[in-house]
């Protein structure tokens, strides 16, 4: 099997306190993984290390065979174009329309206007908010904003999708919808990692679960297939 993500004895310390301690795991191409753990367990730190926003103090991280810890500063943006990110607080730009928000990753990488229009429309359609494309994100509900955030993360066809507490601000019904969306994206071949502290998500996902407790990885359990 191809390892899409590989962590080898990764540790990260803040003020000598280990946020992530000696973590080793592999995630294969096309996998859907839930990263569980209470707040402060080190889930966000781990995800941030995967996109080069934090550097581990020890260990190596590989994404699609490339050692992220050895990337030059100038190479980090190109890694992030392959790894889409979804956030709990959506992080949408309120002064730009839904369309413009989703188009941003494509503009950043220099896509043509025709490509941008086509891909943004496809992404918005995939998450079910195409009809809201001209609205401001502030006029949308939390669930819709999270859909827009997901559309932005998948618009340039990333190989990996990272979601940090994506359902933290959503009610159970919207949570279910968002999880279904992630499953759909995963079914199209994208490796998906969802970090959450919400045990209800685990029951909805029914896939591989990795648990972090105080920065330490606990033995894995695989729920269903």
């Amino acid at each position, binding site marked *: 099997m191809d390892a899409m993500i590989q962590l080898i004895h990764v540790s990260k310390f803040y003020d000598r306190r280990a946020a992530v301690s000696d973590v080793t795991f592999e995630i294969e191409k096309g996998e859907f993984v839930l990263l569980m753990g209470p707040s402060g367990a080190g889930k966000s730190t781990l995800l941030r290390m995967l*996109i*080069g*926003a*934090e550097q581990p103090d020890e260990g190596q991280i590989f994404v699609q065979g490339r050692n992220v810890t050895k990337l030059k*500063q*100038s190479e*980090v*943006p*190109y*890694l*992030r*174009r392959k790894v889409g*990110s979804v956030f709990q607080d959506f*992080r949408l*730009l309120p*002064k730009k329309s839904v369309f413009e928000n989703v188009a*941003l*990753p494509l*503009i*950043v*990488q*220099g*896509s*043509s*206007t025709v490509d*941008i229009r086509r891909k943004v429309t496809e992404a918005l359609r995939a998450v079910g908010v195409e009809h809201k494309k001209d609205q401001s994100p502030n006029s949308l509900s939390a669930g819709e904003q999270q859909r827009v955030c997901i559309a*932005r993360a998948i618009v340039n066809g990333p190989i990996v999708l990272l979601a940090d507490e994506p359902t933290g601000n959503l009610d159970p019904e919207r949570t279910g919808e968002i999880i279904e969306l992630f499953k759909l994206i995963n079914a199209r071949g994208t490796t998906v990692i969802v970090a959450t502290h919400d045990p209800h998500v685990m029951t909805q996902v029914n896939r591989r679960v990795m648990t972090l407790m105080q920065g330490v990885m606990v033995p894995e359990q695989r729920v269903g297939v």
Partner: protein
Amino acid sequence: MRRLFYLLREAWANMRTNRTTTIVAILTTAFTLACVGIFLLVYVNLRSAAGWLQEDIKIMVYLEDRITREGTQELEGKLKADRMVAGALFISKEQALGEFRAQFPSDSHLLEGLGENPLPASFVVTLAPNFRSPDAVKRWAERVRTMAGVAKVDYNQEWIDALAGLIRYIELVAIGVGGILSAAAVTIIGNTIRLALFARREEIEILRLIGATRAFIRIPYFLEGAVLGACGSALSLGILKFGFELFRQQIRSAGRFSGIENMLSFFPLSICLALVVVGMMLGFAGSFVSLRRFGEGRT
């Protein structure tokens, strides 16, 4: 193309969002650069005046009273044969007296009491353009002073030297003041950019996370700084031009310095454009400093 459009739009949006700060920054930069411009303008005009005086330099070679007609002709021959001399005009004692009377009619009685004409004969020498530098003039005058029949060699070099000294002094002051005020302009624009960066820090963070390169994030702020600098500089030129014309009008209406106002000149277009470019570069530098301090580019 879309990317370029985006970057330009972002720079414009930055300025529109922080409209008041932008206007204040442009005005402050304009007044700061106008102060530098005053020194530059004085410097440019004094330099041009010094150049003009140097071009027009006339050397008076006064002759001894006891020189004979042959001696005068011989001296005239020597002067005219000199490769440094472009022209030598002989003024006899009588011509000198006539000129004095013509120039100072009310004081002509002063000479009458002396009986004999006290004014010496002279040659008014103009040097060739290549030999009009202060050093060349000085060397030539020293050489001619030793010639037979020459009583004195006089020229307004001292005055020109004093003017050159003043120009050097103003040059130093202009460099000093220019340096300090340029740093002030950089700081003013830098702070404006810093405010914009602070206001848009979340957007910058989002751009980083979706894979924007450092250049992509920085360009709108560089553009903003450059536009602020260029606008400030252009406005400062406007202020200077207005002040300059006002000053010239004052001189003209005073009447006492008639002719001087025509010698005064504003910066030529090429210098104006260069100053706008300098303003642009100062703005660029302000953005650069702020982006570095803000830590943009960190992951």
